């Protein structure tokens, strides 16, 4: 219904070309809330705005952000940020990094919880927040979100590696996309260093499978070429699971199973599986997906909705 309200806002916008133009994605008013001020930050001064939290955005690749504050008498302010990320994969990555659920209400994926509404679309990550929601503030936030969603003209593709996740037993919204090694440990602690040589040239995703009491984690890293993949795989096997040189799965001291394999330039590994068969089966499913994608010569990225 909020999409239907957009014409009533009667604001013109253009496709942003620079930082200042991001303001064209924002209304000056939403219900009783009026624009108070704008601030702009780039990757050199984002610390001045959100200090340590800046690193998350920088780790994904970030250009500029507009922060607009809206005020309303007798209500808490609403703060809206539009992050112009380097690419769609970065906006998607930030969203998957912090969302607990995907409500698909705005953009290409959204989440609303108490005091916070986030979504992503194209190469933009959008956040709306207030100290505490009331019925009025939530309505105003959703109206602003709808305006922004409509103002950003295009959607963009999710990273192709998402299409390599087997659908069976995948926890809904239980995956995180990244290309900075810090996020290797997003769901499951692997190592305190960059054991898989993750960098801006790689695509990584970690995903949850099965119920909480029988949880497996699948890690996929796509390298730019087979040479890089082989080097990373060799390091991983040497430093994490040397048993894989002689066996196809390893039982860890906590009685969970782990395995790993390389399919051309794709590294795949299963952690915390409740049994050997589950670990190998999940890996084989990845192999089938990877083979299918290779045979089709196109990324199979439409099988899972972000």
């Amino acid at each position: 219904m909020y999409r239907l309200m957009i014409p009533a806002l009667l604001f013109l916008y253009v496709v942003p070309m620079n930082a200042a133009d991001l303001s064209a994605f924002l209304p000056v008013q939403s219900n009783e809330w009026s624009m108070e001020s704008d601030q702009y930050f780039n990757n050199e001064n984002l610390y001045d705005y959100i200090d340590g939290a800046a690193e998350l955005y920088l780790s994904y690749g970030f250009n500029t952000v507009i922060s607009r504050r809206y005020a309303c008498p007798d209500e808490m302010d609403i703060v809206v940020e539009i992050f112009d990320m380097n690419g769609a994969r970065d906006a998607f990555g930030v969203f998957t990094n912090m969302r607990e659920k995907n409500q698909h209400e705005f953009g290409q994926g959204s989440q609303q919880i108490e005091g916070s509404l986030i979504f992503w679309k194209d190469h933009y990550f959008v956040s709306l927040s207030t100290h505490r929601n009331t019925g009025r503030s939530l309505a105003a936030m959703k109206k602003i979100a709808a305006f922004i969603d409509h103002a950003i003209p295009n959607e963009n593709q999710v990273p192709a590696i998402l299409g390599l996740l087997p659908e069976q037993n995948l926890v809904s919204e239980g995956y995180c996309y990244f290309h900075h090694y810090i996020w290797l440990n997003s769901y499951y602690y692997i190592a305190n260093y960059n054991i898989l040589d993750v960098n801006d040239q790689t695509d990584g995703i970690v995903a949850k499978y099965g119920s909480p009491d029988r949880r497996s984690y699948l890690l996929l890293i796509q390298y730019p070429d087979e040479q890089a993949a082989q080097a990373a795989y060799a390091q991983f096997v040497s430093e994490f699971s040397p048993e894989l040189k002689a066996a196809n799965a390893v039982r860890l001291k906590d009685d969970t199973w782990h395995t790993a394999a390389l399919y051309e330039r794709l590294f795949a590994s299963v952690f915390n599986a409740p049994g050997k068969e589950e670990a190998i089966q999940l890996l084989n499913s990845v192999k089938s997906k990877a083979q299918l994608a290779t045979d089709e010569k196109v990324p199979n990225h439409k099988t899972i909705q972000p």
Partner: protein
Amino acid sequence: MTEKKITRREMLINTTAFTVGSALLFNGTYAWGSSASSKSRVILIRDERLPDYGAKPDPALVKEMLNKGLCALVDEEDPSVAWKKIIQPSDIVGIKTNVWQTLPTPPELETAIKEELISTGVASENISINDRGIRRDPVFQKATALINTRPMRTHAWSGVGTLIKNYIMFAEKPSDLHPDSCADLASVWNLPNVKGKTRLNVLVMFTPQFSSVGPHSFSPDYVWSYKGLIIGFDPVAVDSVGLRIIQAKRNDYFKEDRPLNPPAKHIEIADTRHHLGTADPSKIELIKLGWDEDLLV
């Protein structure tokens, strides 16, 4: 500095107190103010009468909790004697607080600490409460003693905001400590204006935050009424107790193992690399006082 590489495999082999997600490698030997063989004492004190998030606590109740906790820490019954064990009237005291907008150090706690310092004989002009301006603060510049206090909360880059991290504002350029998810935060405790000066660490767990969302890292959904203070001399030990509570709350709330993202490695590294204190539960003497419902530790 050579980085110690720690994989999950190593932790499973070496650790007796492994906790999934918040896992640390526990092999430190140092305990603040005590011999290497003794444990770091940490006091967890809770009171059900504290209010929920957003409401102001009763200043008298906050002071009562602080004093009970300190008394237990130093084995004294009289708070005035307990304070004199850690602070001298001649001291110049910087109270390092935290002003993060949505979850700051409660002013009632800052006031309670200041009042106790004055009661101990410290001149009012020799006490300062500050956070982001400490490097320019004349009291902090000539401080002989520091008291470190802040709430614990999840953090988008360091895993959790801790007492160890609270001193980052002593650094000339705090962002220099951000690499590798703030792994070496404890190094700031070796700066000349910090080293050896901390007399007390007070981790505020009134309404701690167990998850983050958005650029401001906050939703009221992600705080809960734990109604506690964690007090100790060893900041690593205090932080590691707080971390276990945060991790337990995350697992309870999300109904599955939900490790901090990223892991709070700076706590473990404060122990194993910087030897600031101990993160090993087997080397921490945890004394629990007061309200014991849903302790989580």
